[in-house]
């Protein structure tokens, strides 16, 4: 009687771990494949696993920086842009979400629907007007040109508003009775309580901005103002199906986000669970 549950527990664990390992292999396969292609030299006939494991071309990573020293500048640009946009979106979204969730003012419902309505307009439709506006401000080849159009996000407003609505209204009223100002309430109570939602929004925004392609391509021309995704296309060969430097460059520009994820994992996970407990 007592051994049966223990046995099933062990087999459950085993199955779980096997599944998890399989999942990790699937998730890591593109990385592995990129690394494998990068290390096989400039050949159009690479194999899944390098033929000669003793003769791997690790110098390809060095070659990327030698061929395009701007790679580090592109990574810096992407970092500045993605971080600024993330911070901006968090600030603007939480302010507007707070107004929509807690304040009473005329036209509130209309405002919400207008904000949500912008989600229905595809990015491509606003591209040309945005481009004309930004270039008339002489913001081509600048950080503000890359950052400002993305500082507000209807998706962020909606996400945070929905989250704020789940928090007990009593908390807000109690805080006001105790003499807490609205901004103070937002900063000291709402934001800490909403860490899971904020973390989700932050990760989503950061990755979305990091991976932008078309806007940075339009709004920048000089090599030093390119962002990573636009910049690394210079490694893609044309008429030559040779992938080594292209893959090496891809791995290099992926590393910063990967490191961020590895370092931030604990924070992100604890943020999610602590929020879950308190909420």
């Amino acid at each position: 009687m007592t051994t049966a549950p223990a046995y099933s527990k062990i087999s459950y664990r085993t199955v779980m771990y096997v599944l998890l390992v399989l999942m990790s292999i699937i998730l890591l396969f593109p990385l592995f494949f990129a690394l494998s292609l990068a290390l096989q030299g400039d050949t159009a006939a690479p194999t899944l696993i390098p033929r000669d494991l003793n003769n791997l071309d690790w110098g390809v990573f060095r070659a990327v920086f030698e061929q395009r020293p701007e790679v580090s500048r592109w990574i810096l640009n992407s970092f500045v842009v993605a971080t600024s946009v993330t911070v901006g979106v968090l600030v603007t979204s939480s302010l507007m979400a707070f107004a929509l969730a807690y304040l009473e003012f005329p036209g509130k419902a209309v405002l919400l629907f207008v904000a949500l309505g912008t989600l229905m307009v595809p990015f491509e439709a606003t591209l040309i007007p945005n481009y004309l506006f930004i270039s008339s401000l002489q913001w081509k080849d600048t950080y503000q040109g890359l950052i400002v159009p993305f500082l507000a996000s209807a998706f962020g407003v909606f996400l945070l508003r929905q989250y704020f609505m789940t928090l007990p209204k009593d908390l807000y009223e109690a805080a006001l009775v105790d003499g807490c100002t609205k901004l103070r309430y937002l900063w000291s109570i709402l934001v800490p309580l909403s860490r899971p939602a904020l973390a989700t929004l932050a990760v989503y925004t950061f990755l979305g901005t990091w991976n932008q392609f078309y806007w940075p391509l339009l709004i920048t021309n000089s090599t030093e103002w390119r962002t990573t995704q636009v910049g690394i296309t210079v490694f893609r060969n044309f008429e030559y199906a040779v992938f080594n430097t292209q893959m090496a460059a891809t791995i290099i520009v992926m590393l910063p986000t990967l490191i961020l994820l590895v370092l931030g994992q604990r924070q992100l996970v604890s943020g999610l669970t602590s929020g879950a407990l308190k909420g």
Partner: protein
Amino acid sequence: MKKVSVLLSFALVCVLLTALAIVPTTAFTQDNPTPTPLPTLTLVPPVPQPEGSIKITFWYGLGGLLGNVVQETVNQYNLSQTTYYVEAIFQSSYDDTINKINAGLASGDLPDVVQIFEAGTQRMIDTGRIVPVQSLLERDGMLGLLDELEPAVRANYTVGGTLYSMPFNSSTAMLYINRAAFVEAGLDPDKTIWTYEEILEAARQLTVTDANGEVSRYGLAVYPESWFFEQIHAVHDQLFGTPANGRGDTRMDAYAFNGEVGVNYFNFLNSAITEGTALYYGTGGGAAAGSDFATGRVAMHFSSIASLRTLIASAERAGAGVDVGVVMMPRQPDAAGRTIVGGASLWMTNVGSPEVQEGAWDFLKWSVTPEVQAVWAANTGYYPVVTTAYDQPAMQEALVQFPQFQVAIDSIRMAPVSDANSAHVSGVFVSMRTDVITAMDDFFTGRVPTAQEALDNAVALANEKLEEYNSTVP
């Protein structure tokens, strides 16, 4: 899962960072000495702009090794004189370059010179912001240059009797063969013109099945690609679209590639697949097919002549004894055309001041001088766009080192130029290619039973888009 993936990704990061830190630079080229050098993989920094020179903006879409050759060529121009300075700006790809042009039309943020692929010709003409090259040739009394251009190349960028853009990098389609396998199978590797029937028979002889019944070498690699299909129409002197492939005075208003020529080509490839003498790679399988060709797994492979050096170098590196040769695109016995030109040309816009436009024109004229074209061709896989370049030592050396180029040159000179054997021009060229690729894949995988039906579908889709496009332009 989190733990495992975190650990694994952390390990990966560590390995990469260590590798970056300790590896000597020279490891990159030392490992595999190869007698066939690819264009050098080194930094080509732009030369500085001399004071007082007029700046010409030039957008280009060639990345990687070829992009370096572009920058090198621009550097040579900038060092050759001090009046003008060309600033070369890489715009990610041919497609992105034309997209960026479209976005810039409204604001006038256009470059002075731009490299556009052959599929963009009609769209560039329709922008209304370009200066036809021929008008400047006329102004300067330089119409003689037209006769120096390779006839096939000149035809490719001429619409309604006007040369619109300056040819720059030109390629054509070839069938690559493994000469060693041909000799082994008792086939003649020096025969350059093959009919469909002959290729099917060769594929049977080249296919090797081992003791376990596994195929160790296929005769032919097949993957869906519209460019080869367009080539086939030119080879058979058959219009791809009417009227006159869009080359005449009126715009092309209907695609017509669902005729006998298209159906026969589809059936030819499909027979090889169903006989088991061709390996089908599926959509986007070009790189995989090239890889299998270089390692000897397939004996024949369709590709651009511009891939020649990579395939030779890769075959040498793979060490499977593949001897890279080229033959012309296979055809029916009565084929009377030639292959067409791929690649890109340089367009001039009218947005700059008169001095800037003069500078752009000066750069264009310089880019087709025999010396420049010879060096360009010798360092890439393209052939020169002016016939005078063949007298240059650089080009003669290249032809001695890579005799395969001669087959490509013969292939575009096979027949006198006509509208039918010049590529078509249309505003929906790029999306039409997707329709052709879908038709091929549908037929080869059996989703659509006949070649005729697959092609009828593609023509209907392409015509719908063409009609829509034509209704938006005057």
